[in-house]
Structures are given as structure tokens and as C-alpha cells.
């Protein structure tokens, strides 16, 4: 269990950047492998064709030269990669996983249902400026990489996914270590410890935790507050747009029921989705009856039902990563809608998905004093 | 006792909670049980309560499943409106004579539709509802009574008093009403007897200082239970005799304790339960609870008490209580803890009377050949050996027939008597 250090207790170190931040990170990981702190590293890498990035589990440390800690896109949600490696147990390999904060949070969520096991994993996050929509990248990869580099320097989110543009958790630390790039002096970055494992790791790497991370915390707070304002306004506007059933139906009317959003979602862990199962397959008589009742029936049926059902099932664990929207071939704003609803549902329980592995899932906890607002609404 | 001639059937007297538990347990061991119940219904006094302490579970919901099991159990021969008249023989071979009064309604044909009540011209006070509502001469004591078959009160039925009335029979479409039924004498051979005849409460008129019977809105515990009950005379509305909602109430513990000479063990807890009832139905009500020693033993009871205390209710250790009517209110004069005189005025008073043996306990004891103790309860031989065993082998006493106790203890004794029987033969 990762026990998060209280923010005042978070200890960090200030490290210097000799060439680029990416290089510094690579060197750190190499050092870790050299000293046997890590046996392998899970980190994104640009694919040979150059038009995408992929998570790679690296055992040969020379390949770390091509690793990219903060790729412009999220082709696969990091938690899914972690899930592939550890669903059936820990294994003895010590792995360092370098991912974005929302990917770490999704991983933490999955530990709560025993879907990933991270005892032998060191989860390392990094300040995230956002993720580019994948289609924007694929069109012109080289141009996109430049755009992303600039955006990272100026911390400008205009080219990022819509959910990233209103993300106030882009520097949230939920894992063991965090790489801070905000509020630094020139040519320096922070490495912050958030757990005993993180602390021990830094010790083994001879990195003393005596740096002052106040400037990082101040900048992060500033950014978060700004984003929260934006988030509130955006959600308000979104609610007006899809608040009524008709609007909702319109929004999802383009859906082709490919279920891609569900497939790429890191917290959709069911072996067989309810909506792929026999429970939604009816005899033709049933469809004829519906057609009779309503005049006509659309195929594939139950589209909005699929989204509402999926929302009901995973909203409490949604980390607003936006992978679902990237995967939608019809460009439906699923992430924006799901993220907005997740804020509300998680808010009912004062819960933030993946914030801490010590926080039990609202699904599994019962408090005498909860949901009064829902109860009262029915009086 | 491995006498091959001993009879394995068991007679259980009383179909209250203890009698039901004992019967069901015996049936599970494939023993035949003859369950004799004096009234027309099962469940005893437990079904008079709306909720039970300390988890405040719905009493009828708790008992209904086992009543249902009882009625459908093939091993249990339920004889309602029946009483034991004579017992001869000994452990393993008792010969019991039972007098079963006619119900005048056929239990196989009647489906419990209640259509026969409406046309009956006779109106009487309903004893089950403590006289707070009326019933007819053909009646079931309360909604939900099981078996759901009415009986005819021949003492008041017009037909049985010489008049030519058959209003009920006319409306019954199942030919279930049979005026020609006769009382029956049933003789049974059985191996052992379990006495589970329960209790009644001390007559509060014997303690005139509490004003019961003289002052309106002074109620006994059972009366209040029926007022609060959702299937009771007011469907659960707590109202004064003038129809208004009480703004204040007093609960008086230990009524009759000095006269009877023992603590009835459940009254402090059920008075706290009443306190809870009152604040549930009337949140702003002001309650004063008058007690002498708070008797709340058991791992779960004190926390119930503490919950009630948190509501701000007044718990007053008092003595020498006098209750009189003054104008619209009821005045309670008392001596407080320090011995100082004090008084308070309330709209309603609820008395917690002592638990006393049933009026016919001594008669039954003679029939069974067991003794009763100085308080009138059936006497156990030695409670440090087993409190269900009497001086007569084969006759066991359980529940409040043996002494005042709560439902958990009654059920334990019922199971214990079964344990004793099954381990003996």
C-alpha cells in the first residue's frame, strides 16, 4: 500500500539537467538498472515507423537511449500496460514504470480490485502538460512533436486533448516518485518522493532528499487553481449542452457501438463486458416488438444504454485520461462527458480515483452517513 | 431412558415464541409435536410489539416466518382454542386429555378473506388490542394473526345466545362457517411436556398512586405497544384520548415491583424502547423517564440506553411517585435522588408493570403435577442444575412461565428443553 506523504512532508531532491530533461531521466533509470535497483523499465518509446509511441518493457539498458518519458500522445493508457505485466501476480522482477499522473492513478485504482500488483513496481510520474489527440499526431508526426515540445516549454495546453485542457491533476502524485519540471530554476528538475519505496529508491540511487520543493508546490497549486476555474466553467457549459435527454441522445447518435472506448479504458476490467454479453442479445421477436411500440428501432441497438451503463459501472474510478475520446472513430466527446459525470459521482463520496491506494473504493465501503443528498431528493 | 415403550411425541403447551421455537426444533428431529394453544392465534405476546429491543427489529416480521413454518410443518399438530385438562402417567408415557373449544369455522375451507366480519351485528372490545378498539363476535384478534382463520365468541354471539342470526354464514362462499361444530375432548399419549405458557402483566389498578384506570391517557405498556403498532387500533398514530398529539410524556418504571418482590428484567429496556418510539413518531416530544435502578444487563443493552440518553430525554431516579390529573395535564409528584420533593406535568403517562404469571398457572400446575413458586411462576427444581427442569421428570418449563425474562432468554430455554428431551431419549 502506497501511503502518500502529507504534502508538507513530501521530500524532494533538486537534480541538474546537463543536456535535456529526457536525458536526465534516462540516465537516472540507467543508473537504477546498473545498481540493480530496477531489473527493467516500463516506459514509452517511439515506434520504428516513427508515427506513434508505445509502452516498452526494457531489459537491455542500452535501449533506454530511445525511451521517452513524456511522449506527445497516449496510444495505450499506461495502466493497461502495467495490467498486462502484473495481473496474474508480482513476479520477482523489480520494474520502474514511468507514466503520466493519470496513468499512475488508473494503476492505483486497479490495485484496489486486485487487477494489478505493484509491490515490485516503482511508479514514477512526471508533470504533465497534457496529451495531444492521436489523430492530430498521426497526420504529421514530426510537426506534432515540435508543437508538443514547445507546448511543454511554455506549458500551453491549446493543442492537447479537451479533457487535458481542464485537468487540475496534471501534477498529482499518487505513485512512489514524481519528476517535477515546474517552478524549477533553469537546468534543474525536482525528484520527489511520495512513499517509503520512493524514499528507499532514491537512497539507493544516492540522491539525498534535502532539496527545497516549495517553488514546485507553489507553481503546481497555481496551475491547478487556474485549471479548476476552467474546469468548472467548461463543465457548466457542457451540462447545458447535454443536460436534456434529447441533447444526450443527439450527442450519442453518431455512436456505431464499436465499444472502442470501453476497450481502451484502463479501468474497464471486466473479462466480458455486460454489453458484449448475451444479456443484451435478444430474440428477434423482442426487436420486432420494440419496433412495433416505437414505430421503428435503430441498429445496432441500445447505444445510449451502453454509454450510460458503462458510466454507471466505472464512473467512480474514472481518471479523466481521455483515452476513450481518442479511440472513438466518430469523435464523440465521450471523455468530456464521462469526466464531468465522474467529478460529480466521485464528489458524492469525497473520493478521487487513484488519489491514494489506501482509500478504499466507494463500491466496497459503507458509511452510515453518506448519500443523504440522494436520499433527500426522493422525500 | 431407553425404554422402547416410551412415546417419542412431545406436548408443548403455549404457542408463543418459546413454544414455537421448541416445536420447530423438535420437528427437525422428526418428533411429532402437539402444540396446544389456548387462544385462536400463535405468536403470544411477542406479536403485540411493533419493534423489539435492542436492534429495533420489526417484531411481526421477525416472528411471521417461523409462524408460517409452524403452520406448514407436517410434524406439528397445532391445536388452537385448546387447553390441557388432565395429565396422567410419567416421563415417556403421559396420557393427556385436552379440551378443544369449537372455532365454528372450518380451518381447511376458510381462506381468510375476512368477509364474515362486516355483517356481524355484535360489537365488543378487542382484548388483543387492550380494549382500545372493537371487534365482532366472529373475529381474528388483529390483522396478520396466524392461522388466518376467525373464531366465534360464543359468549357474545347472538346465535349462541338464542337469536336466529346467521349473517356471517350467509356471506361465506366457502362453506367455512359451521355452527354445528362441537367442542372436542382429545386424548393423546406423549412422552414429555414443555410448558411455555408465557405471562401477563401486573394489574396497574392495584397501584392506584399511578392513576391507571382513573386518569385518561395513563397507559400500560401493552396498551402503548398497541397504540404504536402499525396494525393496531390507531394504525400507529400516538394520540391522546382527545385526539390531540401529546407534547410531553412520562415513562414510569417498576410499577408493581414492590408488591411482587422481584425485578422483571425487561421493563427498563422496553421503557427505553418506548422512549425511542415516542421520539420517532413525535420528534419534538419532551420525555421524562422515572426509574429506581437502571437494570440493563447484557452486552448490547447499555449502548441502546446511551443512544436514548443522547436525545436529551430526562432520566430521573425517583421514589414515592404520585400521579394526579390537574386541568388538562397530568401531574407527577415524586421524590428525586436527593430525597427532595419535585413534580412535573405531562400529557401522557406510560406505565411499565411487572411481569406476572398467567391467571391459570396454578391450575395448570396442579394438572401437570408440578409446583409453583412463591411468586406464582412454575418452579424449576434447581436453577444451578437446569432452570427448565421441574420436580416432575418429563415436564419442562420454559420462557416467562418459569420467570420474567426477555425473548432471547426464552428462546434459549426453549432450545434447552429440547436439548434435554433429545439427549434423554
Amino acid at each position, binding site marked *: 500500500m502506497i501511503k502518500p506523504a502529507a504534502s508538507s512532508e513530501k521530500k524532494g531532491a533538486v537534480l541538474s539537467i546537463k543536456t535535456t530533461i529526457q536525458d536526465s531521466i534516462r540516465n537516472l533509470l540507467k543508473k537504477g538498472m546498473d545498481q540493480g535497483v530496477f531489473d527493467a523499465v516500463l516506459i514509452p518509446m517511439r515506434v520504428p515507423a516513427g508515427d506513434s509511441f508505445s509502452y516498452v518493457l526494457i531489459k537491455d539498458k542500452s535501449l533506454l537511449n530511445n525511451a521517452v518519458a513524456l511522449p506527445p500522445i497516449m496510444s495505450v493508457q499506461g495502466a493497461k500496460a502495467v495490467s498486462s505485466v502484473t495481473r496474474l501476480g508480482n513476479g520477482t522482477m523489480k520494474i520502474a514504470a514511468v507514466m503520466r499522473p493519470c496513468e499512475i492513478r488508473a494503476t492505483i485504482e486497479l490495485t484496489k480490485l486486485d*487487477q494489478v500488483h505493484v509491490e515490485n513496481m516503482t511508479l514514477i510520474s512526471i508533470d504533465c502538460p497534457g496529451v495531444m489527440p492521436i489523430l492530430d499526431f498521426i497526420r504529421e508526426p514530426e510537426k506534432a512533436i515540435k508543437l508538443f515540445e514547445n507546448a511543454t516549454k511554455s506549458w500551453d495546453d491549446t493543442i492537447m486533448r479537451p479533457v487535458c485542457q481542464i485537468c487540475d491533476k496534471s501534477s498529482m502524485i499518487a505513485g512512489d516518485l514524481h519528476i517535477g519540471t515546474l517552478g524549477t530554476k533553469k537546468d534543474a528538475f525536482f525528484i520527489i518522493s511520495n512513499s517509503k519505496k520512493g524514499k528507499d529508491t532514491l537512497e539507493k540511487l544516492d540522491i539525498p532528499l534535502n532539496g527545497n520543493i516549495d517553488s514546485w508546490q507553489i507553481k503546481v497549486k497555481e496551475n491547478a487553481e487556474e485549471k479548476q476555474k476552467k474546469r468548472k466553467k467548461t463543465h457548466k457549459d457542457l451540462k447545458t449542452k447535454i443536460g436534456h435527454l434529447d441533447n444526450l441522445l443527439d450527442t450519442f447518435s453518431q455512436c456505431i457501438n464499436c465499444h472502442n472506448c470501453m476497450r481502451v479504458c484502463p479501468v474497464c476490467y471486466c473479462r466480458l463486458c455486460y454489453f458484449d454479453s448475451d444479456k443484451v442479445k435478444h430474440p428477434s421477436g423482442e426487436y420486432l416488438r420494440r419496433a412495433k411500440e416505437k414505430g421503428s428501432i435503430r441498429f445496432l441497438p441500445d447505444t445510449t444504454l451502453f454509454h450510460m451503463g458503462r458510466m454507471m459501472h466505472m464512473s467512480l474510478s474514472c481518471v479523466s485520461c481521455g483515452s476513450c475520446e481518442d479511440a472513438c472513430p466518430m469523435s464523440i466527446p465521450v471523455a468530456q462527458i464521462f469526466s464531468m459525470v465522474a467529478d460529480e459521482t466521485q464528489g458524492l463520496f469525497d473520493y478521487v480515483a487513484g488519489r491514494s491506494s489506501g482509500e478504499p473504493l466507494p463500491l466496497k465501503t459503507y458509511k452510515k452517513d453518506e448519500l443523504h443528498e440522494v436520499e433527500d431528493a426522493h422525500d | 431412558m431407553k425404554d422402547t415403550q416410551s412415546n417419542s411425541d412431545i406436548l408443548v403447551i403455549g404457542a408463543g415464541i418459546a413454544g414455537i421455537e421448541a416445536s420447530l426444533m423438535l420437528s*427437525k428431529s422428526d418428533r411429532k409435536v402437539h402444540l396446544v394453544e389456548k387462544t385462536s392465534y400463535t405468536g403470544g405476546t411477542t406479536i403485540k410489539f411493533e419493534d423489539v429491543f435492542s436492534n429495533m427489529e420489526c417484531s411481526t416480521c421477525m416472528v411471521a416466518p417461523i409462524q408460517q413454518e409452524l403452520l406448514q410443518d407436517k410434524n406439528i399438530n397445532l391445536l388452537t382454542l385448546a387447553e390441557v385438562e388432565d395429565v396422567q402417567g410419567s416421563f415417556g408415557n403421559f396420557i393427556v386429555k385436552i379440551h378443544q373449544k369449537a372455532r365454528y369455522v372450518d380451518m381447511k375451507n376458510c381462506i381468510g378473506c375476512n368477509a364474515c366480519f362486516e355483517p356481524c351485528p355484535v360489537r365488543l372490545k378487542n382484548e388483543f388490542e387492550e380494549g382500545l378498539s372493537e371487534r365482532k363476535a366472529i373475529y381474528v384478534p388483529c390483522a396478520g394473526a396466524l392461522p388466518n382463520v376467525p373464531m366465534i365468541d360464543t359468549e357474545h354471539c347472538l346465535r349462541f345466545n338464542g337469536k336466529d342470526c346467521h349473517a356471517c354464514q350467509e356471506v361465506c362462499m366457502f362453506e367455512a362457517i359451521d355452527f354445528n361444530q362441537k367442542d372436542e375432548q382429545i386424548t393423546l399419549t406423549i412422552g414429555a411436556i414443555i410448558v411455555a405458557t408465557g405471562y401477563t402483566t401486573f394489574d396497574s389498578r392495584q397501584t392506584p398512586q399511578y392513576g391507571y384506570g382513573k386518569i385518561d391517557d395513563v397507559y400500560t405498556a401493552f396498551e402503548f405497544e398497541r397504540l404504536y403498532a402499525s396494525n393496531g387500533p390507531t394504525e400507529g398514530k400516538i394520540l391522546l384520548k382527545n385526539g390531540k398529539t401529546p407534547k410531553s410524556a412520562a415513562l414510569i418504571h417498576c410499577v408493581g415491583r414492590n408488591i411482587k418482590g422481584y425485578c422483571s428484567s425487561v421493563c427498563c429496556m422496553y421503557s427505553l424502547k418506548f422512549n425511542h418510539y415516542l421520539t420517532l413518531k413525535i420528534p419534538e416530544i419532551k420525555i421524562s423517564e422515572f426509574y429506581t435502578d437502571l437494570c440493563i444487563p447484557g452486552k448490547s443493552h447499555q449502548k441502546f440506553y446511551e443512544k436514548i440518553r443522547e436525545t436529551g430525554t430526562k432520566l430521573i431516579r425517583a421514589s414515592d411517585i404520585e400521579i394526579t390529573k390537574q386541568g388538562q395535564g397530568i401531574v407527577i409528584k415524586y421524590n428525586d435522588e436527593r430525597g427532595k420533593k419535585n413534580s412535573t406535568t405531562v400529557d401522557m403517562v406510560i406505565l411499565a408493570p411487572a411481569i406476572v404469571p398467567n391467571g391459570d398457572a396454578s391450575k395448570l400446575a396442579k394438572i401437570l403435577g408440578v409446583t409453583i413458586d412463591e411468586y406464582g411462576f412454575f418452579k424449576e427444581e434447581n436453577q444451578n442444575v437446569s432452570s427448565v427442569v421441574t420436580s416432575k421428570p418429563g415436564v419442562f418449563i420454559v420462557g416467562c412461565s418459569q*420467570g420474567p425474562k426477555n425473548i432471547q432468554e426464552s*428462546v434459549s430455554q426453549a432450545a*434447552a428443553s429440547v436439548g434435554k428431551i433429545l439427549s434423554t431419549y
Partner: protein
Amino acid sequence: MNRKIGVYICECGPNISEKIDIDKVIEAVRFLNDIVVVERYKLLCSEDGKKYLTEQIKRYGLTHLIIAACSPRDHQLTFMEVCENAGINPYLFQLANIREQCVWITADKEEATKKAIRLTKAAIGRVRCHSPLEKKEMESNPDVLIVGGGIAGIETSLQLAHSDRKIYLVEKTASLGGLIKNFEKTYPEMHPCSISIQQKIETINKTNNIKIFTDSEVEDILGFFGNFEIKVKKNTNEKDSVSFNVGAVVFATGSTLFNPNKTTCYGYGKFDNVLTALEFEKMNLSGEIVLKNNKTPKSVAIIHCVGRTEKGYCSEICCMYSLKFARYLKDKIPDIKVFNFYSDLCIPGKTHQKFYEQTQGKNIDFIRAKNIEIAKKGEHLTITYNDEKSGKNNYDVDMVILSPALEPTADTARLAEFTGISLGDGGFFAEEHEKLGPVSTSSQGVFIAGCSQGPKSIPDTIIQAEAVTGKILSSLIPGKKIEPEVKVSFISESFCIGCKTCLDVCSYGAITFNETKKVSVVNEVICRGCGNCVAACPSGAITLKHFTFNQIYQELKAAIQ
């Protein structure tokens, strides 16, 4: 699927036949799929009715049966029996309640008819999805493990021991007898009690079918009702572990006394001549009541309710045994002055008030006191307290006896864990139901008796021991098979994600986790079919037999279409 469904609508006299148009109901369902016959009948639950149904089933070769009539509470079992006798699996039957849930609550005939049609269609929709379920039978072991050799364990052993049942009695100390061994007399009779307990122990020693393990503890309990696997080990140096099988387990581990060391106001452990109740019982039993300096005490204070605030409950027996102590003292030292300091006198029951009144005699004072503090004053002890009448007060005495609360023994938690039962109020074993199930637990076959269930007197302990006997004798009968619940849960291996949520919500310990396959598994023998796991499963991998998704969905759909 070659279904042949027969639908029978009961007229129930005027009850149903006058309140709805039965013919309309017949018309509404006659042509539905799989329906081969729809009839109405005067009274289906009568003997004639049952005969009629049996004939109909045989005549039409029915595979499924629908009856629209009264509440299942009344006749579910009746009609299931009819099915079984006529050769239909009793679970291929559904009873639609068109009486209590329709005609008895709907005044308008047309509305009632419409509703009756819906209810009948719903039952038909459901029954199409029913699967036959078979009754299961299991061999069971009639032997019993009793943990704890105090009065409860002894009584249970003696009552259960029989030629066709072995009893294993495990006691952690060196000898049987429990706390009672230390008492000279019991209240209210004040008869010497050591003889009777010795006799009982002798009887146990002589009884062949009772195997006694002293200086031993239970190491493990695996399995379930009818089939428990027990491991017992001796506490001495021998690493001997004994294993055996039983059908039922009884926890009669008693209780221990709250340690007054946890309080500071009574001076226990600090001052001489401050004793706990148990220490005083032992001193009394030895025959000589003396102070540390061997002198006879001239005055004794007995403090009730020690630890009551800390524990949060009244231990029921302390007021009575404090009165017993007053009697012990007066019997042995007639001139001694005795003070009972109490808060509320708890003396429930028909014999206890008399005992109290008879104890109130010369020189036994009863003081209702609060805020008691004990200090040393030379060779004596001073008790300061608050009295409701006169405020602050004090008394000097030679000896103080503390009456501490009863609390569960240290191994309660461990034993509870072995068997999946929980601890309830006060940390005592949780009974299955506060009122109706005082000696059983949520795990079938695991029973509790005596002070391990909660503080209580010796007579009540004996009663619970006898109650456990009754429970075991009526449910674990040598040679008789156990019939576990039929409508149980079932976990699909392929859909289970291994999150273990179901294990958390199962109150009966019926679900275990298979570490190799990383899936949860239901033990069909223990499962009671409550459905908690079905509702809690985040990925819908669990079904409840006879309450499957499809069955409920089809029933609902037909009802509200």
C-alpha cells in the same frame, strides 16, 4: 426446448372469481408461446384441486407449471409437492400472486383484471427461464468439538455424549472446571458448588465417548457444517498435533475479568488488600479471609461496576456476586462491617430481589456512589466518593474487593477467524440473531454458549449449553444426511476478475479464493443463497440459481410491457 406450460387460475371462491374477469386472463395468455393449456379451477389448494392438477400434468405431459392464485407464503410448498409427485422438477413452477398482491388491494374490476394478466404473464416469462434444480444430500459427521472446559463445555459434553457420537473437549488450562472451580458457593441458593462440578468432571473422565485434551488449543478449523477438519495441539513442549473430523463446533470459551490495572482510581496493584472478585473467591475458598499482614479484616468495601464505563455494558452478575461476597464475609467474620458501593442495583429475575433483601442486614451498608477513589491511609484504605444525598464523603476500610466487568477471552478473535464468524458487541462472539438465534452463529454448525456469547450467570450458561445440545441433536443426526440449500450462488470462472469483493460481502464464509486460478469459488454447502455476492460483484460474474438475470429480466419485462 420443448416446453409445455400449463397455466391454472384459481378462483379462490368469490375472492378472485368475482373480483377479476378470469376468462379475460385466460384469453390473454392462451396463445403465448409454449402454453398448451389454460384452465380455471375453484380451489386448487384443496385435495380435489391437487388431484386435478396431477391429472392435468399427466394428461398434457406438462414440463412447466404456472398457478395464478394466492401468496407463495400460503401454498408455494403445496404446489411444489404436487409437481414433484407428478414428475415435474419442483423448480419448474411459478406461483403468481393475484390475490394478496392484486384482487385484495385493487377495487376496480377492470384494473384488477389487467394487473392479474400482467402478473400471470410475468410468471410465464419467468418460468420459461427456469432450470431444474436438484436437492443435494451430504454425509455428515455426527461428532462434536467443544472448545472450553468450563461449565458450559462440561454441560454440553455430558448432554451430547452418546454411543453414536464422539465429543472432543479441548481445554487450554491444565484442568477442567473453568471459573466455577474457584467458587465456594453459588447464588442465590448459597449451596457449596465444588462437589457438583467435581462430580461432573468425574463423569466426563469416565465417559468413553468424550475425549479430553487439556493444556491444549485449537490450531485450525477448516471445512463446514457436517465436515469440519480440526487440528489441536498441546501447549507443552511436545510438538504433537492431533487431527480429527467433526460435524459441529461449539465455542464455550467463557470470559475473563476486566483487569483493574487499566484504571487508576481503585489502587489495584498499587496498594495491598485491594483484590479482584476472583482473587477474593479463591481466598474465600481456601477458608481464611485475611489481610496481607495476616490479620483478620474488620471492614470491607465491595466496589461494583469496575470497568463498566470502559467496557460499555453491564455484566449482569456482579451485583449478585457482590451480595454473595457480603454473605461470605458475614458468615466467616460475623462482626465484620461490609459496604457495597454500587451505581444501579442490577438484580433481575424472580429470585434475586429476595436474595438482596435478605442480604440487607445489620452492618451491611449499600451506598449508591459515583467518582470512587481509593487511597492508602496508613494500614487502611480510604474510599472517597460522591453520594447523591450528601455530596462528597469517605470511609476507611481494611480491604477492598473490586467487582470487575466480564470480557471475552484472548482467543475469541482467533477462533472467530477460523470459522468466519464475527465478533459482536463487547468483542464477544456474535450470535446469529439477537432474539431468535442466541446460540447459533452465521456459520452453520458453529455454536456458542455461555459467557463467550456475553456476560451471564451460571443458570443462564447451563441453559445455553443445553440449547446448543438441542440445536446439535436436532440438526446433526447420526446417519441422517444434510440437505443444503438448493438456490445457491454460482461464480463463472471465465468472468471472475479475482477482485475478492464477494468474499468481503459474504456473511457466511461460503466463498473462498482459488490462488492458482485467481478466481473466487462458492461452497454450495455453506451458501445460503442470500444474493449479496451477486449484487456486489463488479463484473457480473456471479449468478444466483433460481434468481438469474434472465429470469428476473423476463419476469419484469412481461410485467411492465
